[in-house]
């Protein structure tokens, strides 16, 4: 029996030991719900009454009435001039007119082939890739495209190569997730003094864009949970100089990637409506959104200038971790339960090149290959290389916790 089988059977068995009589509790729950509704309505009514009294008091209405009554007793005409507005009937705005989701169908033109070498080399042709950086658990490793020369680089998360291929940006997996730089030979690791994660380099190699640090004042921010090895906050997009200067927040979103024409492509971090495919929606946000209408699930891609201006929505949905091709003419991304897709730079001509289970694409320098994460079996991930037309796939690493590949330029 495998570990998975044992855990599955054991947990199911333990669950059967829990007594859960639904019929006995249904009335209790519904009664409690009714009581809470009544309490909510009563509180709202009392609040409205209080506001009305305050308003009347503020406009002098009560005082005028009182003084008018006092004047009446003196025999003068009582011109109250009262406001006899009809009572509010409590019409609810927004109910019943919730917008409908209008998911566009993804093109699945050339479905990927399934040839796989599975043995640490790419069949057919050499991809011409020197190194791939990737995460093995919370450590960063380097490896050759043929699976040779595996070596530990440093502790950290989400490596990203500089354009010239000599340095790697990443974030720490503890101490608040600060951005770090290290030479590819492992020397001169140092922090940039900016809190965030998932860095990506500017084409000139002098700035980084990244997932901005947690900010409790921003709606939709998800805090860092360093004790659990959380790989990064999700609170909008920042840019910072590679010398640590000029750190600034440039807009909402997540997973930014800097293209060769100085545009940044990124995912939808904080949409107006909750979406069950997103990892950023906490139960609290869902509760808030529950009052606004049914959920939508667009999660489109966006592009913008590096100053945060010119935001343009691309016609792809449920897109995660977008990345520009080296020539800036294509974007690779993945969908949960959908695999890896490639679109044109304007988000059109979407092609599914790898099925569900493949994720986190990173382009080779010649734009012909993608290093990707593949879930080989339950909870086990390895790094693979796939051809951009999906025709060839080969396993690079044989680890079980290998994710977030980044191909050296």
């Amino acid at each position, binding site marked *: 029996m495998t570990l998975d089988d044992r855990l599955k059977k054991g*947990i199911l068995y333990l669950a059967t030991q829990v*007594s859960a009589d639904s019929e006995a*509790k*249904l009335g209790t729950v519904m*009664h409690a*719900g009714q009581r809470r509704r009544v309490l909510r309505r009563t509180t709202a009514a009392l609040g409205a009454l209080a506001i009305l009294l305050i308003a009347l008091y503020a406009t002098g209405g009560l005082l005028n009435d009182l003084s008018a009554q006092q004047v009446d007793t003196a025999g003068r005409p009582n011109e109250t001039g009262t406001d006899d507005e009809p009572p509010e009937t409590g019409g609810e705005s927004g109910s019943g007119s919730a917008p409908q989701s209008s998911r566009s169908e993804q093109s699945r033109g050339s479905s990927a082939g399934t040839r796989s070498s599975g043995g640490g080399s790419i069949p057919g042709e050499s991809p011409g890739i020197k190194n791939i950086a990737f995460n093995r658990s919370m450590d960063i490793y380097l490896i050759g495209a043929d699976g040779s020369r595996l070596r530990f680089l440093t502790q950290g998360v989400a490596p990203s190569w500089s354009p010239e291929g000599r340095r790697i940006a990443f974030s720490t997996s503890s101490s608040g997730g600060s951005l770090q730089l290290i030479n590819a030979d492992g020397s001169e690791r140092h922090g940039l003094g900016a809190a965030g994660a998932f860095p990506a380099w500017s084409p000139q190699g002098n700035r980084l864009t990244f997932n901005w640090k947690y900010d409790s004042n921003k709606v939709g921010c998800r805090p860092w949970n360093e004790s659990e090895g959380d790989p990064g906050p999700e609170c909008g997009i920042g840019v910072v100089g590679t010398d640590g200067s000029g750190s600034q927040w440039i807009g909402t979103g997540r997973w930014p990637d800097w293209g060769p024409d100085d545009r940044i492509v990124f995912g939808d971090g904080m949409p107006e409506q909750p979406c069950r495919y997103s990892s950023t929606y906490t139960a609290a946000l869902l509760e808030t959104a529950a009052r606004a209408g049914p959920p939508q699930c667009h999660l489109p891609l966006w592009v913008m200038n590096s100053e945060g201006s010119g935001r343009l929505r691309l016609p792809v949905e449920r897109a995660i971790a977008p990345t520009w091709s080296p020539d800036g003419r294509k974007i690779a991304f993945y969908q949960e339960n959908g695999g890896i897709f490639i679109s044109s730079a304007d988000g059109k001509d979407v092609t599914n090149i790898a099925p569900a289970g493949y994720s986190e694409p990173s382009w080779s320098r010649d734009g012909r290959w993608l290093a990707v994460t593949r879930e080989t079996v339950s*909870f086990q991930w390895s790094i693979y290389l796939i051809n951009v037309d999906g025709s060839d796939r080969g396993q690079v690493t044989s680890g079980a916790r290998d994710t977030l590949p980044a191909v050296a330029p």
Partner: protein
Amino acid sequence: MTGSSGAVVRGVARALDTHDDFANLFRAEFPSIVRTASLILGDQERGSDIAQEAFTRLFVSWRRVSKYDRPGAWLRRVTIRLAGKEARRSSLLGVALRKLPVPAATPAPYSDLHSALQELSHAQRTAVVLHYLNDFPVREVAEALGCAEATAKVHLHRARKRLAEILGEEEGS
């Protein structure tokens, strides 16, 4: 029957009449929610309390939540959030976990697993329960935990590794 209890019965009866969908969801999901919360908290009594609170919140918001594709997913998220709050509260107050009852006839491996689950962090235990009890894929575990998918992967990996260590199993088996 007193006046107040009669009103309660009539109120519940009306609610049952007008909330058939809620009642159906309750009957379908309540056992699963109780078991999930109980395994996450390691305590059946508190798990049952959390489940009832989650359904109460669902009932209050039912008119809108019922329009969702999956009201059950909303319910599960609320449950997990409430269980997380309860776990933190218990931790802060130093409340000792009351373990789930493990009958004497329980096979040893499951008894070991029961103990091993208590060794995990709250997030790890939640991730494991959601995956193995509720068959959630990683993405939905992340969604339910309110964290990034990569984070959920880490939770599951660490939980699986820790459980393998405690149970004396090969992680890759």
